[in-house]
């Protein structure tokens, strides 16, 4: 009995030992700094010391720009320096939000802001719906014992690893009117070329499709984790009760996947509202303003037209929208936890 309880020597490979050695040295070195510090300020306050670097980075690169942006939104002029920017109160916000008919961007003082807002709303509805449906279907398929499941999981996730700019450049090459791969194929089979990125409807479709293609893997992975967390016993119980596959999905999978779905929905919504880099490279907001989204409007207003005040005011409006979405996620999550 005693022999059985004796700890067995753990086999340590040469490579892992070599890899760990520098870390051990570093940790040993850290002791010489941290132990005296801990004695000085006490163990309770050590947490602040560890958070400090990140807090500084957050403060300088996120919090401070946010405060500056807030102030910029209430100033005007072309100068960057705050001291040279006259305070104009809510003028920028008033101008942004003034419309004779809110359903017709042409009647708005800042018509491009409203075009951007409408385009973003269309994009969000289309992209998030398609993303969630396709991610769910893919996750359900990948959760089944299909042949090559690992390969398919990797394949669906692969586009997530690509930079949005790379994705946009690849698809731009595929969809170009003159020299695009897709149009070359259409011509080769005797069909007419299609202006995929030069006609409003097509451009909006492709912007959504490419966005879904590039991000779907991420959401599929989250949903897959959610699906795998559902206990198998629940399905067995449902099966014993005579439930068919659809009934199992409706009564077991869907309700138990709802918390994960909520996270996916809110994350997808926030990402969709922030859409910029991919579309900037793919269409630059065109044709006309068909794919001009709210973040690109802010970018153009600030950096092309140097209207920093208006750009900052539009950022504030966007921040409020994102805040509402985030609070919505928190409320939903807490309700689900409570239930």
């Amino acid at each position, binding site marked *: 009995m005693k022999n059985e309880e004796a700890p067995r020597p753990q086999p340590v490979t040469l490579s892992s030992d070599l890899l760990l050695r520098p870390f051990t040295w570093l940790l040993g*070195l850290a*002791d*010489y700094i941290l132990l005296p510090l801990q004695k000085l300020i006490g163990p309770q306050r050590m947490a602040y010391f560890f958070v400090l670097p990140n807090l500084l980075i957050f403060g300088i690169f996120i919090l401070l720009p946010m405060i500056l942006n807030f102030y910029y939104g209430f100033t005007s002029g072309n100068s960057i320096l705050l001291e040279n920017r006259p305070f104009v109160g809510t003028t920028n916000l008033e101008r942004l939000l003034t419309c004779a008919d809110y359903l017709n961007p*042409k009647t708005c003082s800042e018509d491009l802001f409203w075009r951007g807002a409408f385009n973003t709303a269309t994009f969000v509805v289309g992209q998030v719906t398609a993303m969630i449906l396709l991610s769910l279907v893919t996750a359900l398929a990948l959760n089944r014992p299909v042949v090559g499941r690992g390969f398919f999981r990797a394949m669906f996730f692969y586009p997530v690893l690509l930079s949005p700019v790379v994705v946009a450049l690849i698809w731009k090459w595929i969809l170009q009117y003159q020299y695009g791969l897709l149009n070359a194929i259409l011509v080769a089979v005797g069909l007419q070329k299609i202006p995929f990125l030069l006609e*409003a409807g097509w451009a909006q479709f492709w912007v959504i499709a490419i966005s879904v293609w590039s991000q779907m893997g991420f959401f599929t992975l989250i949903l897959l984790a959610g699906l795998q967390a559902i206990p198998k016993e629940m399905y067995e119980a449902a099966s014993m009760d005579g439930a068919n596959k659809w009934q199992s999905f409706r009564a077991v999978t869907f309700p138990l996947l709802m918390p994960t779905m909520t996270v996916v929905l809110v994350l997808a919504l926030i990402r969709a509202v922030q859409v910029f880099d991919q579309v900037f490279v793919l*269409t630059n907001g*065109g*044709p*006309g303003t068909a794919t001009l989204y709210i973040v690109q409007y802010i970018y153009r207003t600030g950096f092309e*037209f140097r209207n920093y005040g208006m750009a900052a005011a539009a950022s504030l409006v966007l921040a409020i929208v994102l805040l509402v979405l985030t609070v919505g996620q928190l409320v939903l999550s807490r309700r689900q936890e409570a239930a």
Partner: protein
Amino acid sequence: MKKIVFVIALTALALVALACAPAPTPAPTAAPPTAAPKPTEAPKPTAVPPTAAPKPTEAPKPTTAPAAAVELRMMWYNDGNEGEVMRALLDRFEKENPGIKVKIDTVAYKDLHNILQTQVEAGTAPDLARVTDVARFAGKYLDMRKYMTNPDSWAKDWAPQVLQSFRKGDDKTGLYGFPTQFTVTGPFVNRTLFAQAGIPVPSDTKKDVTWEEWVDAAKKVAAATKTPYAVAIDRTGHRFWGPSLSKCATYITPENTFKVDTPGFRDTANMIIGWHKDKITPLEVWAGGGGGYAAANEFFVNGQLVFYMSGSWQIGQFDKLIGKKFDWAAVPNPSGKCGSTGMPGGALLVTFASTKHPKEVTKLVEYLSSDAILEEFSAKTLFIPGKLTLAKKGIQYPSSNQPLNVFLAEIAKLMPEAYALQYHPLTFVLNTEIRDRLSQVIVGEITLDEAIQKIQTKMDEEVAKAKK
């Protein structure tokens, strides 16, 4: 064990600190007080050949403290090879002026003005910069007049409108910089396609060719040679202005406000909209350009375009990319009811008032703007010089003499309205507004009336803002 770790860590830290420390260089104070400032002591000793070393007799007197070399910073952007050409000229300047070094900070053109604005406002502007939006920094430039050898004579070498574009308010005499090159908008044609179609190039047989005649001829050529596109114009308000002024558009009123809605403006806008409806122009340029500048040069280079409205800055690129693949040429700007004009433009070398070395900056400007140096710069970069004496005298270019001479001739034809528009402080707003609103009309988002109304409103607001 801990002690061993501690010793190893300390040794490693010491090694890292040694490795990261700057290489030991003799501090200026370490130099003997009698040492003359040899070129080898300059930051870039390899750039100066030994023969350039000042003779002992040229060195400062032993009683005088050796002056450290003044370093001037010049912000620069490149369209082609002008960075290399400028560097070679600066090396020569440094050789002739051992006390001055010039460092070039090259940035991408699209970021140039934003970077510069941040630096100017932060008080860390470079000593000189090559810009195109000269009005943006008016009031921040260095007036070189009091440092120049002969300012009045120097000023006479440049177009008064160009010199005025640097100035702010009532200033009529300040000398703040000069154009490194002058550009003129104008069209190019693919002569090979005309020859293949058996249609004469209209400007070969007639002095004044109208827009309608050019478009008609280009359409026939495109049809005969199965070329995808007959005509194209770059997506920018700047390119639109020349044709519209020829068609009698007037933008700036005597009260210094803007008037957009004129028959000339509508005529030109409808002409470009019509090209899209007739599908004789590439959709990618105006319809697909999104929110930025777009050029049709790729279509021309690839032989897919008969008539291309762009400008003299394309010559170097065409010379390199097209070469002898087909016969291309620049032709005079088409005529309208009010004449024929292109638009002036170009890059300008400006000096900033925040410089700590105004004398050296002025010396460099005088050097770079001298006839011999500017002539060499223009010839090697295939640029049209902005200096009147050189433009009049002409430049012997190593290649592309035909298009360059055509554009040189176009300078004399530029309308005063074209200069006024180009160098107006609100020109960049009108440029982008026309570009973006006209694109919206082309893709059917708004009507031409709505576009004109939007542009007019925007310009009225900008004028009101500028008056405050």
